[in-house]
């Protein structure tokens, strides 16, 4: 972790005491989100997501392979995230470190446990051949809140994915079978306040972080608490409520980007 100047910490904390954030946002307000789909034409589906200055690209590749022995009639989904050195002076080349793995796993859970991808429809021959879906996430520009940017990029990419059946001589290409997506919202706590969609500066001084994914029925589909600080039950309740509210807006942006 980089050394954070105490000046930055003090400045953001003072602002928070007056109910303010450095970029003028309200505590529960996201930065501007934009989604562009079809950004990599070799991929089966792809999307670039910007949340403020944070920029993430996700691409989907599909292959035919063997199913897991405990789910012989289901497709396989794997998610990988790369914190490439392009995105930040602090990211280094090499095998994924703890933070990249945590990011990939949180995104993976958001996508897998919510059962967005109808894996049971991706079986070709039970026990032998199924579709494998690779979600690869590249962080291009890091200005905080990779969790939400990466999840959203993964979703938008999945929603534009065509199963490449023709290439594998398995009939005509068809859209990847998907259910309604959950949307992930991340919050951090510093100096006693909890703010949505943390910028890099806010993330650097954060004591605790909480990511909540909610679906359109306002149910919770995945959670992850991070960092060494603690959260009170009240704060968690507030975060869930705000996730549902922000989630609705983000879902609208997602649907618009995929023309739904």
């Amino acid at each position, binding site marked *: 972790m980089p050394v954070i100047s105490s000046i930055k910490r003090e400045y953001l904390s003072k602002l928070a005491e007056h109910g303010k954030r450095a970029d003028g946002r309200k505590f529960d307000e996201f930065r501007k989100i934009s989604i562009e789909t079809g*950004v*990599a*034409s*070799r*991929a*089966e589906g*792809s999307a670039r997501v910007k949340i403020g*200055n944070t*920029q993430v*690209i996700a*691409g*989907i*590749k599909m*292959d035919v392979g063997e199913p897991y022995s405990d789910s012989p009639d289901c497709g396989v989904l794997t998610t*990988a995230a*790369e914190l*490439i*050195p*392009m*995105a*930040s*002076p602090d990211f280094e*080349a090499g*095998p994924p470190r703890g933070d990249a793995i945590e990011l990939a796993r949180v995104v993976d859970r958001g996508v897998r446990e919510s059962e967005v991808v109808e894996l049971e429809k991706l079986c070709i021959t039970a026990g032998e051949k199924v579709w494998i879906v*690779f979600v*690869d996430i*590249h962080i*291009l*520009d*890091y*200005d905080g809140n990779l969790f939400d940017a990466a999840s959203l990029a993964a979703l938008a990419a999945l929603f534009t994915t065509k199963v490449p059946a023709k*290439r594998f001589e398995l009939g005509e290409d068809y859209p990847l079978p998907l259910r309604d997506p959950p949307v992930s919202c991340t919050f951090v706590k510093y100096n006693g306040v909890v703010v949505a969609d943390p910028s890099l500066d806010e993330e650097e001084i954060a004591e605790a972080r909480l990511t909540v994914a909610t679906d359109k029925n306002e149910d919770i589909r995945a959670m992850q608490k991070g960092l060494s600080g603690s959260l009170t039950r009240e704060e968690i309740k507030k975060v869930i409520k705000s996730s549902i509210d922000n989630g609705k807006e983000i879902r609208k942006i997602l649907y618009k980007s995929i023309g739904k």
Partner: protein
Amino acid sequence: MKSKSDVKLIDGHGKRIDGRMPHDLRKIKIEAGILHRAEGSCYLEWGGNKVLAAVYGPREAVPKHTQNPLRAIVNARYNMAAFSVEDRKKPGPDRRSREISKVISEALEKVILTDQFPRASIDVNIEVLDAEAGTRCAGLTAAGVALADAGIPMKDIPVACAAGKIEGHVVLDLGKEEDNFGDADLPVAISPRTGEILLMQMDGHLTLKEFDEALDLAIKGCHAVSDIQKKAIMSKYESVLEVE
């Protein structure tokens, strides 16, 4: 799998498989300064290639034993996204990308005024988002723009372009099928101001005469791409001037 003889790459009138004439480049689009965190950056589309380049530095070279007390080291890192090719590429460096990183680093080092920054490193990250023949030329060209955008002192903005041979004809800037089924590929990078050659690789089969013709053509291509590079940098700073 298609074999070489199944594909007609060029017709009797010199028209190529994608409709270009022998001396035509694919369509190139360059944008400078598209990332917020990097000190300099560039997005480049070259035919079906999509490439990003980002520059960090000069900064202290780590680990320490890599430092050169007399000049900066240049670390280019060429990386292909897993989804940039037809069959998913396993993430991380392989032998091919390491080699490309090395020859690009060496090419860039020649034009950067490295002796101004002893013990420093200048890091150039090249990400291939979409690959369709000629990614090393696209990557090096994008790196040149990103370095200029980062304000790294250079003698010149390096630029690359390939020429090659298909069915006996020397042509500029091979496309995907031409690269797969053609006879030779000659990627070249130059310093356009002096004409010095910074990178050159060749695979296939060329006679001496064909080589001369191909090299002339590649250098001509480099100059054409160089003009697009300069326009991209100008247009970024023009818009900055307008705001002020």
